C-alpha cells in the first residue's frame, strides 16, 4: 500500500491524455445521451394524463413543462421522470390547467359547420365530443375551439355527449352547458325535432337541469309549383298524415288534368288546424294559373303566378277568400299571362279537341253544376276561345243512357248552358256560343260499361 502512494506521485503524466479522452467523450456522447434520455422520459410519461407536455434535456437534467389536470397527476409525473435511469435532476416547470368557474361548454351550429367551444375537462373528453359531433353530423365541418380546464361538474361527459346529439337535430342554434345547467336556442331541422330534443333532455344525468329551451320548430310549409314548360306540378313540404296526403294527391290529380305530378310531400305532425280545407281550394286556384307557386306556411296561403285571362284574377281571389277556412290569411300576387296569338277557327277546333281529349268538364252527379275541379280546364278552353274571336262555337252536352231520355235531354242542355254561362262570365260574347243538348242520342262508347258511360258523359266544343 505504501508503494501505491509512492508510485501515485508519478501517475500525473497520464492526466494529459486522460483530459483528451474526457474532452472527446464529452464531445461525442453528450448529444446522443440527451436524445436517449429525452426519448425514455417521453416514453415514461406516455400513460400520464397531461396536456402540452414538453421535455427538454440538457446534460442529464430534464426540464419538464406540461399542464396537469390535478396536483397528484403533476407530482406523479415528476416522480416518473425522476425514476428514469440516467436522469440526474428534474426541473419541474409544469403547472395545473386553469380552473374554469363557471365551467362553460357550448356547441353552436350554423348552415355549414358546428363549432364546439368553451371548456373541456380532459383531452380524451374533447376527442370523444369531436368524434360524436362528426358521427352525428356527417358531412358537416366540425370546428374545435375547446380549451382544457379544471372544474367540470361530475358526469360532464355524458351530459355533453347527449347535447352533441341534440345539435344534430338543429338547423341552426346553440347549446350551452354552464356548470349543471343547459340552455338551448335555435331552430329544429325537422318538424318534430323540437319535441324530440325536449324528450332527449329528460335523459340528462342526475344533477343537470335545463335552464332554458328556446328551440323553435321550423315553419309548417306546404308548397306546390306549376311549371308550364315541363308541364309539371311539383308538391313538397309537409302534410299532417297519410290520409291527408292521399286526399291532396287525389285533388291534385283531378284539378291538374294535363300535368305530370311530382309528389315530394312528407307526413309530419305540427300542421295548423284545417290544413286540408286550406290546401285543396288553394290547389284549385293554382290549377287555374298558367304558371304559379303556392306556399302554405302555418296559417297563411300565398299564391302567385299568371292567370290565363283578365277576368280569372278576381274570380280566383274571390273563390280563395270564400273557400279558405276562417282565420287563414290569403295573399295573392296574380298577373295575367300575355294573350296568345290569334289563330284560324280550324286551329281552334283542333286545340279544343286536343284539350278535351286530355280532360273532361265534370259536373255534380245528375246536376248541371260544374265541378270546381274543372275550373283549370275551363280556363284553358276560354283561352283557346279567345284566340279565335271570329269563330262561333256550338257547346254540345251529352249524357250516358242511364235514366229517362227526357231527363237526360234536359240535363245535357242544362250542362251545355252552364258551360256557356261560364264562358260568358269570363268576358266572351254570349252571341258566339250556342248551347245544345243531345241527351244520350250520340254515344261515343258502349253504355254497357261504366267506362263507356263515362266517355259518353261529355261536353264538346264544335267550331262552326
Amino acid at each position, binding site marked *: 500500500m505504501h508503494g501505491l502512494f509512492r508510485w501515485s*506521485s508519478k501517475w500525473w503524466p497520464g492526466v494529459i491524455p486522460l483530459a483528451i*479522452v474526457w474532452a472527446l467523450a464529452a464531445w461525442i456522447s453528450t448529444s446522443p445521451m440527451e436524445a436517449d434520455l429525452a426519448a425514455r422520459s417521453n416514453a415514461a410519461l406516455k400513460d400520464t394524463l397531461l396536456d402540452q407536455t414538453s421535455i427538454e434535456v440538457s*446534460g442529464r437534467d430534464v426540464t419538464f413543462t406540461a399542464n396537469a389536470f390535478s396536483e397528484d397527476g403533476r407530482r406523479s409525473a415528476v416522480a416518473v421522470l425522476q425514476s428514469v435511469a440516467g436522469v440526474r*435532476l428534474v426541473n419541474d416547470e409544469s403547472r395545473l390547467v386553469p380552473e374554469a368557474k363557471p365551467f362553460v361548454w357550448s356547441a353552436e351550429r350554423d348552415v355549414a359547420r358546428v363549432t364546439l367551444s368553451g371548456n373541456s375537462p380532459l383531452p380524451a373528453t374533447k376527442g370523444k365530443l369531436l368524434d360524436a359531433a362528426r358521427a352525428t353530423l356527417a358531412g358537416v365541418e366540425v370546428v374545435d375551439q375547446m380549451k382544457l380546464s379544471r372544474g367540470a361538474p361530475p358526469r360532464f361527459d355524458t351530459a355533453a355527449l347527449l347535447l352533441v346529439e341534440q345539435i344534430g337535430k338543429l338547423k341552426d342554434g346553440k347549446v350551452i352547458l354552464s356548470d349543471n345547467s343547459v340552455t338551448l336556442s335555435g331552430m329544429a331541422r325537422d318538424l318534430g325535432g323540437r319535441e324530440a330534443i325536449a324528450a332527449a333532455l329528460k335523459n340528462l344525468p342526475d344533477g343537470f337541469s335545463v335552464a332554458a329551451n328556446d328551440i323553435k320548430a321550423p315553419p309548417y310549409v306546404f308548397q306546390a309549383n306549376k311549371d308550364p314548360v315541363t308541364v309539371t306540378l311539383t308538391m313538397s313540404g309537409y302534410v299532417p298524415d297519410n290520409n291527408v296526403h292521399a286526399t291532396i294527391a287525389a285533388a291534385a290529380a283531378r284539378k291538374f288534368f294535363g300535368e305530370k305530378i311530382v309528389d315530394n310531400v312528407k307526413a309530419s305532425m305540427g300542421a295548423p288546424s284545417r290544413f286540408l280545407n286550406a290546401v285543396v281550394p288553394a290547389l284549385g286556384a293554382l290549377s287555374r294559373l298558367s304558371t304559379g307557386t303556392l306556399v302554405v306556411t302555418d296559417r297563411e296561403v300565398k299564391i302567385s303566378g299568371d292567370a290565363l285571362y283578365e277576368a280569372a284574377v278576381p274570380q280566383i281571389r274571390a273563390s280563395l277568400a270564400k273557400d279558405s277556412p276562417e282565420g287563414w290569411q290569403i295573399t295573392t300576387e296574380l298577373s295575367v299571362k300575355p294573350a296568345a296569338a290569334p289563330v284560324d277557327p280550324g286551329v281552334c277546333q283542333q286545340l279544343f279537341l286536343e284539350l278535351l281529349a286530355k280532360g273532361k268538364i265534370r259536373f255534380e252527379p245528375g246536376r248541371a253544376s260544374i265541378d270546381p275541379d274543372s275550373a283549370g280546364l275551363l280556363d284553358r278552353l276560354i283561352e283557346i276561345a279567345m284566340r279565335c274571336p271570329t269563330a262561333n262555337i256550338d257547346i254540345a252536352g251529352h249524357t250516358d243512357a242511364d235514366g229517362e231520355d227526357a231527363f237526360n235531354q234536359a240535363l245535357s242542355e242544362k250542362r251545355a248552358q252552364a258551360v256557356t254561362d261560364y264562358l260568358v262570365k269570363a268576358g266572351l260574347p254570349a252571341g258566339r256560343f250556342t248551347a245544345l243538348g243531345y241527351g244520350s242520342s250520340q254515344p261515343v262508347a258502349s253504355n254497357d260499361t261504366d267506362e263507356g258511360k263515362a266517355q259518353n258523359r261529355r261536353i264538346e266544343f264544335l267550331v262552326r
Partner: protein
Amino acid sequence: MGFLVIFNWSWLLLSVLLGFAMGWIAVVHRGRGVSKRTSQWLALLAVAVVAAALAHLIPGRPGYWLDLAMLIFAMYILGCAAGSWLRERVLARVTPTS
C-alpha cells in the same frame, strides 16, 4: 451512475487502460513525482470536485461533463493502481531469481 458507466463504457475502458499503462510505467519511472504538498492540494481539489458533483451544484451539460470527468478520472486511478501493483508483483518475482 450505472447509466453513465453503461453509456460511456468504451471511454471508461480507454481510461482504465491508459491508467494501467501509466501505473505500469510509474513503478520503474525515474523522473520526479509531484511533491507531497501538491498532492495534498490535488487531493483537496478532488474532494471539492466530488462534493460539487454529488451536490449537483453545476447544472446542465457542464454538470454532466463534471460527472464524466470524475468517472474517467476514477477509472484512470483504478487503472494506475492496478498497473503499478501488478508491475511491482512482477518485479518482486523477477528480483530473487536474478
